[in-house]
């Protein structure tokens, strides 16, 4: 096995837009996926994640850059010569073939002997728990079952890489959680290099070894779920991964930052006088009753009880802060209009340089 699974170097893809002329769908993307690793491309619709995946599959050809799989340059290689398993959002099962024939398709077109086909297909259908459906037609199965067939079909011929394009978007919430655990378990078990595309941050965090957040055709940040949550590199990542209060500040010295007239002891190497943003996660903040007239207190603007947690919106000076705390089985709860003080550990605050856009 080669030391790299998938590598993208300076890959770009342009589209012709009827109004805007040529626009980049993907711009200068560099990515490396280690063998056996599951990398997720995460981003909102139109960020270029699906186009990137489709270029790895060979359904789209990049205008610039090189794509290699296990060390072999496949940039101009047709999809059927790349050794990929692809799982589509809409399952894309062959409607005229039975479940068995669907899963057997790849082996059949590759001319494998019948005995091997029967053995492999039976085995993989058992693996996804659908052995008893092999004679059914795709439309007789539920969405989740169809996607499991698609998964079986993609892995049965031992592809080099596995590619998922929003495979769970058409399923309901509960099934999504179940299916993503199944996909992750299967991927780990066969140790296959995988790229997974989704717009759902929770799904990405649950399933991935590593996540690449994409924004407007470029990779905004790459890293583990913890990296992205605790140390977002851009405002976009901070807002896309979890929720965030972004509060503007100004560097007063290397040891403190002024925020809304208050000096906070935050070490930074940014030049003195430059502006930056504080990333304060709602979960970091706790509330306590405040005394009216005290300058550092705020007022509760909104309260939303959500069971496991309660969301508050608090106005301090001219800054609105989103907070979130577990109220359900605690004595202290607050109502709209209550005067409160906010508390958070200064060490948890992440500083973000102001973006030049």
């Amino acid at each position, binding site marked *: 096995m080669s030391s790299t699974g998938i590598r993208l170097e300076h890959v770009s893809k342009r589209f*012709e*837009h009827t109004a805007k002329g040529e626009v980049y769908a993907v711009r200068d993307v560099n990515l490396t996926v280690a063998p056996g690793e599951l990398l997720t491309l995460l981003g909102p619709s139109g960020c270029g994640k699906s186009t990137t995946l489709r270029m790895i599959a060979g359904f789209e050809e990049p205008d610039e850059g090189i794509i290699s799989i296990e060390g072999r340059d496949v940039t101009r290689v047709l999809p059927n010569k790349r050794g990929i398993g692809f799982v589509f959002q*809409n399952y894309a099962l062959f409607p005229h073939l039975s479940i068995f024939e669907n899963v057997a398709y790849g082996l059949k077109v590759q001319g494998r002997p019948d005995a091997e086909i029967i053995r492999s297909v039976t085995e993989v259908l058992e693996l996804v728990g659908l052995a008893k459906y092999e004679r059914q037609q795709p439309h007789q199965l539920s969405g989740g079952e169809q996607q499991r067939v*698609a998964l079986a079909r993609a892995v049965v011929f031992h592809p080099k890489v596995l590619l998922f394009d929003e495979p769970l978007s058409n399923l309901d919430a509960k099934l999504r959680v179940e299916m993503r655990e199944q996909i992750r378990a299967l991927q780990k078990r066969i140790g296959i290099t995988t790229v997974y595309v989704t717009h759902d941050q929770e799904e990405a965090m649950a399933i991935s070894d590593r996540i690449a957040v994409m924004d407007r055709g470029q990779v905004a940040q790459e890293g583990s779920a913890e990296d992205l949550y605790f140390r977002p590199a851009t405002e976009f990542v901070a807002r896309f991964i979890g929720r965030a209060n972004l509060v503007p500040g100004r560097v007063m010295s290397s040891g403190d930052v002024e925020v809304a007239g208050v000096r906070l002891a935050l070490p930074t190497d940014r030049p003195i006088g430059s502006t930056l943003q504080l990333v304060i996660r709602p979960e970091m903040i706790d509330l306590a009753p405040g005394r009216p007239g005290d300058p550092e207190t705020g007022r509760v603007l909104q309260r939303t009880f959500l069971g496991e947690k309660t969301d508050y919106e608090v106005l301090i000076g001219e800054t609105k802060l989103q907070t979130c705390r577990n109220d359900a089985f605690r004595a202290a709860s607050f109502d709209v209009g209550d005067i409160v003080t906010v508390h958070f550990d200064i060490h948890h605050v992440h500083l973000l340089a102001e973006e030049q856009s």
Partner: protein
Amino acid sequence: MMRAASAVKRRRVASDPTLLVTVLILWVLLALFVLLPLGQLILQAFLDEGRFTLAPLLEVLADPTHRASFFNSLFLGASVGGFGTALGFLFAITAVRGGLARHWLTFLDAVVLLPLVSPPFTTSISIVFSFGPTGFISHDLLGLANVSPYGYWSTALAETLTYFPIAYLTLRPILAAIDPNLEEMAFSLGGSRWQVFRTVTLPLAVPGFANAFLLLFAASLADFATPLILAGNAFPVLPTQAYLQITGMFDFKGGAVLSLVLLVPAAAVFLLQRYWVGRRTYVTVTGKIGQRSRSKAISRFATVLLTAACFLVATTIVYFYGLLVFASFVVAFGANDTFTWNHYRVIFSEGLPAIRDTLIIAGIGMPLGGFYGVLVGYLIARRRFFSRQAMEIVAMINYALPGTIVGIGYLIAFNDPPIALTGGALIIIACYVFRYSPTGIRATVALLQQIDRSIEEASSSLGASSGQTFHRVTLPLIAPAFFAGLGIVFIRSMTAISATIFLVSLSWTLITVRILENMTELALGPAAAFSVFVVVAVFVVISLLSAVLARLRAPTASAAARSLLGG
């Protein structure tokens, strides 16, 4: 919308020589069999010794008979549009809201579809049998003498009965899409049944009415066979006038001009239907559709009335076909009702060449038309190449034009060297293929639009080459469209006459043309026997194709089966 950058697109087309060659061949064929005849027709009409002239047109318009035939055509078209839409609506509302048992619905559907698959004269012949001087109804039942079955009323009646199924097929899905809850909600607001019907149901169906009216108007305008039999001298219409100008007076120029006069309202109606009404036909229903229980929007009394009216019309159709069968088995209808096999003996001896020719032409035209339809449909729906949209339009032209125009165009274009095809079978086959395969094209495009591109990509990702993908995935999925295309070309080869009557010769003739000759010679028995033969042959082929479609496991087959009957 975005589309792939042009550089990549160019590279892909250039790297696919098969696509390039296929597109080129198709364009040569389309130029030869669609553009050339139409162009020649226009040149013939407006060019005199190399100069453009309006003189022939003015001459034609100056002739009072021609002028009358123009207005007669419009009047007939409007009448058939009105009557046919009303009748179609009657059947559609009964089918959707009448609460009929399933087997009665099947019966109504079967009866309604009968005229769509029959040779064009069946209703006309039956009307002559019923209302002629020795007619079953006029003479035997009512005791009237000297009744003429010819003229406006009989033509309008025959065309209405022949074409109202189009209105039914257009209106039924629209009415079915109107949520009964909507009507019930209007009820709950205190509207009376009539108010609800007038203010809710009818307005929602208005685009459907307009669409049905225009489709029927166009069908009547282009209809050649019915007026030829029934209109008579008192009620000339454009298609028959153009035909008589050419076959009676050998005046090609006059025929060409007359057929072009027909083109003006035909084109207007086609454009109106396609780009204005056609796009508004779908009722958008928001929210959850209520339980499809029987709507209370129509009172019990009205339901009974509607159902009775439907069965009356259905009975009339069945009676007409029964009369045809009866007439084919008696010595001389109305005069001598003794049973005889003689008419069938005649059509299988003297008439055998026509049957043989028709079956040979249909047999060759079927696979060609089916293949052509699937190929063009596939290219239009799935491939990107220069001139794709132009091809889509040009491929539809002969389908949209009245048959008379197509026939006269072919006659003018292929009468002389370098491309002298008249008199042969090839010209008739080409006429059918390019005139009736567009149904197959539409069916293929519709099927491919249902099949997501990802299915072909899935095949490719699993290691299948583009050839393997086409063979193992695309082809099985569009097979229903192929068989539908086969069926349409066969049905039309057996039943069409308007274009091909200009193209038959001593060596190659058609059953429909023989029926017409029999009618003019008053050999009504053989005409009836031929008609029965055609209906049976069409029925057998449709049953076979339906059986094939049912065996295909593709989920798209049922849609194709519908287009087979609807087209």
